[in-house]
């Protein structure tokens, strides 16, 4: 399944962190470095499997914990209307 961030979502990278605005609520989500990297990788060029591979390569984190966090994060992005699925 292909997932990518919506084109018109306001966001900025601040060093390794990112700030993402939910245009529906005007709330700003400050993302930690791992979430920011995931957000960056949701550019339409990478599927979830590839993103998982890149993150596990770049960060020293437990695979099972990451998979759970990733699943929850994607669900939250979807609920907030920040990503699209194809």
């Amino acid at each position, binding site marked *: 399944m292909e997932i990518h961030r919506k084109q018109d979502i*306001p966001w900025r990278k*601040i060093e390794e962190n990112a700030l993402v605005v939910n245009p529906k609520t005007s709330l700003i989500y*400050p993302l930690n470095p791992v979430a920011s990297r995931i957000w960056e990788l949701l550019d339409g060029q990478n599927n979830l499997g590839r993103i998982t591979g890149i993150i596990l390569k770049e960060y020293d984190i437990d695979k099972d914990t990451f998979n759970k966090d990733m699943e929850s994060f994607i669900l939250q992005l979807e609920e907030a209307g920040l990503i699209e699925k194809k």
Partner: protein
Amino acid sequence: MSVLLDSIYAKVEALRVPLHILLELTQACNENCIHCYIKGAKDRLSFSKDKKELSLGRIIGLLDELQREGALNLTLSGGEAILRNDFFEIAKAARQRNFALALFSNGQLIDKENADRLKEIMPVCVYFSVYGKDASTHDRITRLEGSFKKLFSAIELLRQRGVKIGLKTVVMKENFTQLKEVFELGKYFGAEAHQFTEEITTRIDGTCPGPCQIDGCSLYDYYKGDIPQPREYIEELKKEEALRKPLCAAAASGACISAYGDVYPCAELRVPLGNVKYASFADIWRKEEGFLEEFLETREYGDLPECRQCDLISFCRRCPGRAFYETGDWRGCYEHARERALLSKRINEELAFRR
């Protein structure tokens, strides 16, 4: 969004990311509000040599620069920003650069066509000023007959198109008895937010905001009243905590850029850091010397000599811009802040007595 969230606002301030930008596109306005701080006034300390508004080309370049510096919340303001013929080009360019775009407008130029164009751009919010419960009060303050009717129509047109609206109400003598009705009007309009303020911004030429400011008795009633929300008792800070209370974040995470290109710490503190007609935003923003260096070093109430001696810090909401206009010194204590802090303290003591 819990697991992967982080608190990065301290970093934003430490890095001086200009997260919030107020961009005044023009000083021209089709209303003539009795309390306006900008129309027909000249910035006393402006660096602009030609007194011309920024061109479309310079504004587009500026948007690129702001994006590179990390600016995220961009508010287009005026005067009335939509009076500029190129307003929609600017707004569109801002959205293409992924700014969270907001607009301050008086609504007078928002007809069906412009409402459609705004829907296409989809700002995070369009803020309107509403000054009275009806046309008689609102139009008297804007000094434009029919302005309330047009504002009402603009709000309806945007609501029908799903564009979010917010309201702002300046509390003044002319509308003081109508605050409840104005508040209800905001609910009727389905406003995302409705800000009330009794602080009338000092005119940019340094002159007094005028006779519309409410007097001490009304101020007491307003502070004690329940619009926009009931006042609650606050625990007074111990002296050492009070001294660490942060001052405003102007110039640390936000800036105002005037229609003539001057970069200010905020819309109220009009001490120019530079002008984008003659230098890049980054060069101006990063040149931490003189006033800016001193301002950035002054981050807490305890950094201000007069505040260190004061027992009102818990209740004080001083504004360096207001201090600058009242006393000529942005660090100084000023009557307006002291009066408000004293009132807040008195009301807090009354609330404590009732608990």
